[in-house]
């Protein structure tokens, strides 16, 4: 039994591989040879994990993946415990459907990071693609819980149809929080066009620039206590610092989307 299992990519990948097998849950019950025998998929072709990675360590709930994994999808998918560190880029669907534990991507992540996750923490030090914490196409609910902290920008439709949980990013692309049911999205910088369309009860907090959509109506300018509390928590737990005035500040509050329940909110930092 070792403290950590380390997977080192043997060579850069030319095709995309789906590797749902790479989760601490599985590894903590398996020996080194058994881990190497786990299946991964290159399209319809089944490969062994050991064909792609040099495997070191066994029976540990801490997993380290070394190498450019930008063509490896579904790292940490469905994991419920443990720690997965990807020391570079990750492909699509990192941490999708995870219910617990921590996934840390030291570089960028592809589309669908944290898609439909229900718990745990997903940290991405670089940028992330579209639909972070969102829903699969056609699915009724996106993220159901947990925290996604992206140091860089996220693509379009972050938090689409999310039901609970928190997404934090430096900047967000178009249609952030589309059809949000509840939960929170905090952008420390700018947000793209049409945020919170069809939002029911979700909160979208913007500390940068944003164009307020037509479905939102102005309420007041005030200091929302839960935002300061959340920003303070983010600094303490993830080292996320707020520039331009710190954690406390006044926000313009807009209720929307009025074409839905109108119980969602868009909070825009004053002076942004």
């Amino acid at each position: 039994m070792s403290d950590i299992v380390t997977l080192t990519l043997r060579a850069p990948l030319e095709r995309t591989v789906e590797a749902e097998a790479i989760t601490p849950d599985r590894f903590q019950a398996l020996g080194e040879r058994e881990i190497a025998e786990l299946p991964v998929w290159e399209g319809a072709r089944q490969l062994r994990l050991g064909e792609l990675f040099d495997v070191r360590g066994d029976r540990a709930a801490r997993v380290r993946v070394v190498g450019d994994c930008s063509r490896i999808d579904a790292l940490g998918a469905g994991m419920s415990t443990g720690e997965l560190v990807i020391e570079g880029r990750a492909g699509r669907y990192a941490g999708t459907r995870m219910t617990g534990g921590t996934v840390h991507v030291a570089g960028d992540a592809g589309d669908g990071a944290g898609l439909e996750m229900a718990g745990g923490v997903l940290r991405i030090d670089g940028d992330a693609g579209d639909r972070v914490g969102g829903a699969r196409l056609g699915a009724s609910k996106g993220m159901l819980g947990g925290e996604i902290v992206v140091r860089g920008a996220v693509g379009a439709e972050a938090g689409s149809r999310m039901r609970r949980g928190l997404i934090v990013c430096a900047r967000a692309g178009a249609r952030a929080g589309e059809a949000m049911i509840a939960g929170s999205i905090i952008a420390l910088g700018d947000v793209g066009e049409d945020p919170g369309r069809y939002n029911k009860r979700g909160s979208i907090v913007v500390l940068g620039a944003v164009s307020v959509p037509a479905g939102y109506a102005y309420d007041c300018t005030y200091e929302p206590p839960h935002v300061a509390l959340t920003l303070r928590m983010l600094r303490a737990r993830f080292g996320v610092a707020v520039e331009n005035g710190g954690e406390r500040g006044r926000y313009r509050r807009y209720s929307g989307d009025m074409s839905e329940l109108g119980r969602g909110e868009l909070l825009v930092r004053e002076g942004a």
Partner: protein
Amino acid sequence: MEIRGVTIVDTFAEAFGMRGARVVITAHTLEWARTSALSMTGFSTSVIGCKVEAGIERTLAPDETPDGRPGVSVLLFTMDSASLPTRLIERIGQTVLTCPTTACFDGLPGETERLPVGRALRVFGDGFQSSKVIAGLRYWRIPVMEGEFLVQEDFGKVKGVGGGNFLILAESAEAALRAAEGAVDAVRELPGVILPFPGGIVRSGSKVGSKRYKNLIATTNDAYAPTLRALTATDLPDGVNAVLEIVLDGVDEASISAAMRAGIDAACQPGVRAITAGNYGGKLGPYHFHLQKIMRGDAGGGS
């Protein structure tokens, strides 16, 4: 035992188990947090008449509070588990929710037994309330005329100790008050303990029951009333003309012991003849705080 010429009587304070909660009130300024806390802890001297005993535990710097604002921590105690959530809902609802700029947080996050206080208060929002889960804890956002009141969903419950006490026997009322004020100052910012009586001091110490009125559960402690020296079985030494009592409630025995030690030491001033304590012969309360053991620093002094 003597400390600076003051006799420490070889006796003990007898205390009881209580149920307690710690409420952290933050506000835009420390003054408003204190204003709310003072309202919350008003009329909460004794469970006999107030149903709850409460007091300000200490002030909190912004870096000690959940939302980074100045705050005050308050301890509230009841005799039974069932009434504690009721008292919290009443007091937070009437004195924190109503007070400008405040927010209200649980101060006992490690306690597993939780009281759904914020969950009950949320209905003041009349359906417009909403909640946020932040770092695994749920908070209720209740819309009010000023903006929003934020209150944590649940509060921890602790098995505390109530009725720790000591009596200051002095030559004059002035000397007793001066010594008692010194004791209060020494205890005021110690963690885990409150002094629920006005200014932390009691002049009307009581005995259990009545010699004359059958329906009374507490009446004047005639053994320490100087005007009754000639009329009753007095416990007052010669030369003592005034007695004041310090009553302490705390989250555990260690907090009470530490506070009694600091308070008694500070009370040993000129004009004080002796320090003693109230007890019922050890038959009623499970916690016994032996004054001399406490002052010697022997294992906290409790038993």
